[in-house]
């Protein structure tokens, strides 16, 4: 019974009985009494059992750990921490007992191994019962981890104390398995297993991280905990010391093994990324020296720290010593890792980099290093495409912004990937999106036409004009760019190229923009429109336009730009004709008008609305026409009244105004001419009737003159403001307010006028579309008259059949058009069939 209990208690010690060794007075009788009755020798056995019992008792008495915890902050020197029996030499009786137990020559029930495992049980019990709860409770708080480490070290020393005395006594005679090192290893695994679930690793990692980042000057909140007396040491040395102290403490606590090394590795990896981000985030200069700097840093700072840190962890506790060696290969790997971190950083910034191109040239170069990594290209494509569509390709971005960014994108990616495959892939959605925007062409063309020498323009696309000039010497034979057979450096397309990928001249920004559209015709047509507008402006010098046309001819060839050529020729011919007509009619008043003679077929649709010109002007026109017909006998002039420019000189009572205005504006103000002193006031409706002009135009012109402080509106009629309010009301003090209000009103109107779309020389697309529809309407009337009522699809089909140019509109568009006619009572819709209303047409 007692033996059983003893064995039980040696495995599962209970605090109640533990501190009390087996009483001397109670010899082992259980099994022994049976043995005694079986034979004479049993008496000796009994004797031996009792002897062993005694020996075991003496040994365990010495080794048993007191039932008391070592508190955090306590050291072994504290009074009462180490039990008295351990502080001095072990008593002889215990030494003899232990020697006897461990003597392998004696065949006994007990052995050194048994004693050893008993001791392990003993310390496990103590640790789990007393120390672990303390540590876990402490870790829940925010106290520094060093206390835990110190405690662990103390606990370790505490447990080691009796055993090492014994081991020393045993000397070489003892079994090697009873070595202190075994015990240390056991303690390490005990500690680390007990701490697995706790936040110990996290805390240690955080502490190491803080110190390392402070050492590399990466953290904002550094040296808060720096002691006063350390102030003379500079920051990095201080943190370096601290780090090494901490690591040594870890090691002392027996935790310097693989786990801590792993934590250290993780921290260093994180530090690498942080370092790159902190130091190079906004270092975008070119040429980029960052990869070289990084490599230098790795060798001079990073590696030494790692080596030193690992050295701290090299003490007996660490079982995996081989892994602490730093090889050349490791250093190369770290360097690569650093470049990779840099690349990831740049990739994250890529959008900003593109936006601020070309101040970010260096950063793009960094990314180029990164691209040599496996999968990096695919990563760039997916990540950046996603970012582009999220940040750029959305209704909030204006077309000119998108175009601007696209141009930068082209330039940046030319550096990044000279083969252009990346650009090809990334630009695809951008191009698709740009195609959908209506004003894309217009912006490109006006960018091309902007004056590159004019610094003041805010147009981001003015760069196109510069590019165009740069590219002037590049002849662009599109059919031939595929393969240059004589190129010794030819390489096949990269594997991630799309099937339709075509080598474009990468730097050819304009080529990229123009190829946005399926055909160049679209581009040429838009160019023609804008050119027309500009040519009709009142100026003498068309140098820029001529130059641009020449440059475009290099790119497109002569044929597509023929119309533009004719337009320019018209303008230069006009000057000659004009001079001739003037000379012919020398001295007559004809010379007061000059003309631009346009070849109608080659110009975009122009405004042909007529209005009633002042009779004087009509006379001039007639005379001029006569002169022209003398010059070109078979030709007749058709005057486009709305498109002219007029220099108007207005003599008002207190001032004269000279302005270059459009003809309708001139006609409107002319209508206010009067000889007598009775001022004229007219309403807009009157003017519409008088001038046979469109109401919108009249309103627009009136606003223009009100803005110029020439006309003034009262109620719904306008009259000439003969005297400026300031002059008229100068001497009346109450006039001030009304004067300023008049001026303010005028200014407001002026700005409103400026905001209103200027009268364009060319007709809008809608006008033209409406006119085209008029033609279709004739067809539809003819069709319905002769073929009777028919449904919509049939009408569309018939129109396609009958029209020489085909019918460009969809069923839906036609339905809208026809429904409008139904509303105005020209058609009726019965049973899905459209039918003409009799007598309505």
């Amino acid at each position: 019974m007692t033996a059983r209990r003893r064995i039980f208690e040696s495995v599962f010690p209970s605090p109640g009985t533990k501190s009390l060794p087996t009483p001397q007075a109670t010899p082992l009788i259980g099994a022994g009494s049976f043995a005694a009755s079986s034979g004479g020798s049993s008496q000796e056995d009994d004797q031996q059992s009792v002897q062993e019992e005694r020996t075991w008792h003496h040994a365990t008495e010495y080794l048993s750990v007191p039932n008391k915890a070592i508190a955090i902050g306590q050291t072994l020197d504290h009074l009462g921490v180490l039990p008295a029996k351990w502080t001095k030499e072990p008593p002889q009786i215990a030494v003899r007992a232990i020697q006897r137990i461990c003597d392998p020559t004696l065949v006994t029930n007990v052995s050194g191994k048994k004693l050893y495992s008993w001791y392990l049980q003993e310390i496990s019990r103590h640790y789990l019962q007393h120390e672990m709860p303390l540590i876990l409770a402490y870790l829940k708080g925010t106290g520094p981890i060093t206390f835990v480490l110190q405690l662990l070290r103390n606990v370790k020393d505490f447990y080691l104390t009796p055993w090492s005395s014994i081991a020393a006594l045993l000397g070489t005679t003892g079994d090697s398995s009873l070595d202190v090192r075994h015990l240390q290893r056991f303690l390490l695994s005990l500690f680390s297993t007990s701490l697995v679930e706790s936040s110990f690793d996290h805390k240690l990692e955080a502490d190491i991280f803080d110190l390392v980042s402070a050492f590399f000057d990466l953290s904002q909140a550094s040296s808060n905990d720096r002691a006063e007396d350390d102030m003379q040491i500079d920051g990095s040395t201080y943190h370096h010391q601290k780090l090494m102290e901490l690591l040594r403490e870890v090691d002392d606590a027996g935790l310097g093994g693989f786990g801590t090394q792993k934590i250290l590795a993780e921290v260093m990896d994180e530090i690498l990324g942080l370092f790159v981000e902190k130091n190079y985030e906004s270092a975008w200069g070119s040429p980029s020296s960052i990869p070289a700097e990084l490599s230098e840093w790795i060798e001079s700072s990073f590696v030494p720290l790692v080596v030193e840190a690992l050295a701290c962890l090299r003490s007996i506790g660490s079982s995996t010593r081989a892994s602490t060696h730093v090889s050349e290969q490791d250093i190369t790997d770290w360097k690569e890792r650093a470049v990779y971190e840099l690349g990831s950083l740049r990739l994250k910034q890529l959008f900003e980099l593109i936006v601020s191109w070309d101040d970010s040239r260096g950063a793009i170069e960094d990314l180029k290093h990164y691209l040599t990594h496996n999968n990096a290209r695919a990563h760039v494509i997916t990540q950046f495409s996603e970012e582009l569509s999220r940040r750029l390709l959305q209704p909030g971005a204006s077309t000119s912004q998108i175009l601007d960014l696209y141009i930068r994108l082209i330039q940046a990616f030319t550096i990044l990937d000279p083969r252009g495959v990346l650009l090809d892939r990334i630009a695809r959605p951008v191009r698709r999106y740009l195609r959908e925007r209506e004003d894309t062409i217009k912006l490109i063309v006006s960018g091309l036409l902007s004056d590159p020498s004019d610094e003041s323009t805010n147009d981001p696309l003015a760069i196109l004009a510069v590019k165009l000039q740069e590219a002037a010497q590049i002849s662009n034979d599109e059919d031939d760019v595929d393969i240059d057979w004589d190129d010794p450096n030819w390489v096949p397309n990269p594997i991630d190229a799309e099937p339709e990928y075509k080598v474009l001249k990468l730097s050819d920004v304009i080529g990229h923009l123009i190829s946005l559209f399926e055909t160049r015709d679209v581009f040429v047509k838009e160019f023609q429109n804008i050119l027309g507008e500009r040519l009709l402006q009142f100026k003498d010098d068309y140098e820029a336009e001529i130059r641009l046309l020449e440059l475009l001819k290099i790119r497109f060839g002569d044929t597509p730009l023929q119309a533009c050529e004719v337009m320019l020729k018209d303008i230069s011919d006009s000057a000659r004709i004009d001079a001739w007509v003037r000379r012919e009619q020398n001295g007559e008043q004809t010379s007061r008008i000059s003309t631009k003679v346009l070849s109608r077929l080659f110009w975009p649709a122009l405004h042909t609305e007529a209005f009633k010109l002042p009779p004087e002007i009509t006379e001039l026109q007639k005379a001029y026409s006569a002169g022209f017909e003398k010059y070109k006998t078979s030709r007749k002039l058709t005057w486009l009244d709305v498109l002219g420019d007029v220099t108007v000189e207005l003599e008002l009572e207190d001032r004269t105004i000279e302005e270059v205005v459009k003809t309708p504006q001139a006609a409107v103000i002319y209508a206010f001419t009067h000889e007598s002193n009775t001022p004229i006031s007219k309403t807009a409706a009157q003017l519409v009737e008088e001038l046979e002009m469109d109401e919108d135009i009249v309103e627009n012109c009136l606003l223009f003159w009100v803005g110029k402080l020439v006309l003034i509106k009262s109620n719904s009629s306008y009259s000439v403001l003969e005297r400026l309010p300031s002059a008229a009301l100068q001497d009346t003090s109450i006039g001030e307010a009304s004067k300023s209000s008049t001026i303010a009103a005028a200014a407001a109107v002026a700005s409103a006028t400026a905001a209103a779309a200027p009268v364009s020389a060319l007709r809008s697309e809608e006008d033209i579309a409406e006119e085209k529809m008029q033609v279709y309407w004739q067809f539809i009337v003819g069709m319905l008259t002769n073929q009777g009522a028919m449904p919509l699809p049939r009408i569309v089909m018939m129109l396609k059949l009958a029209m020489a140019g085909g019918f460009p509109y969809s069923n839906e568009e036609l339905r809208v058009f026809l429904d409008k006619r139904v509303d105005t009572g020209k058609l009726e819709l019965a049973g899905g069939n459209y039918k003409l209303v009799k007598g309505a047409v």
Partner: protein
Amino acid sequence: MDYAMEDTQNSAPGAPTAHESAKLSSGTTQATAQSVTKRLQSELMTLMLSPPPGISAFPSATSLLSWTATIAGPERTPYENLTFKLSLEFPSNYPYAAPTVLFRTPIYHPNVDFSGRICLDILKDKWSAVLNVQSVLLSLQSLLGEPNNASPLNGQAAEFWDHNPTEFKRQVLLRHKDLEDDEEC
């Protein structure tokens, strides 16, 4: 279906369109068929852009070679306020041969028989390539007001026209019957 002339060249060879069958049956080369189409399209365009008063014409749903025309009876004639539908069939060698023109609307007229056939010199031996749909229709319109009684197809009508205008007018109205929309050719 798209009958634009560019597309007649490109349509699948296995599935000839009605237009193509018309061309094939008349045994013309594609070139002339094309020029017929082109010519008719341009005539149609002229007619649509400046339609002469009281005259209108449009191709049928199936082919450019067969048209329907509408003529309003000239004022101050017995045909005043009446409209007449005609069918025009163009030969594949148009305009080198005259179109076949028939009145679809029943009409009482000295130069038109009861099946709508017309006796008009320009539609027979006096045809010329410079004539076109518009001029043909204008001639027919004027024929309504000024019949050629020297060679009548309808002797009684010629008789009444010359001697009994009241009876002529009565016969005209008796004979005239507006075609319903869905009765068209």
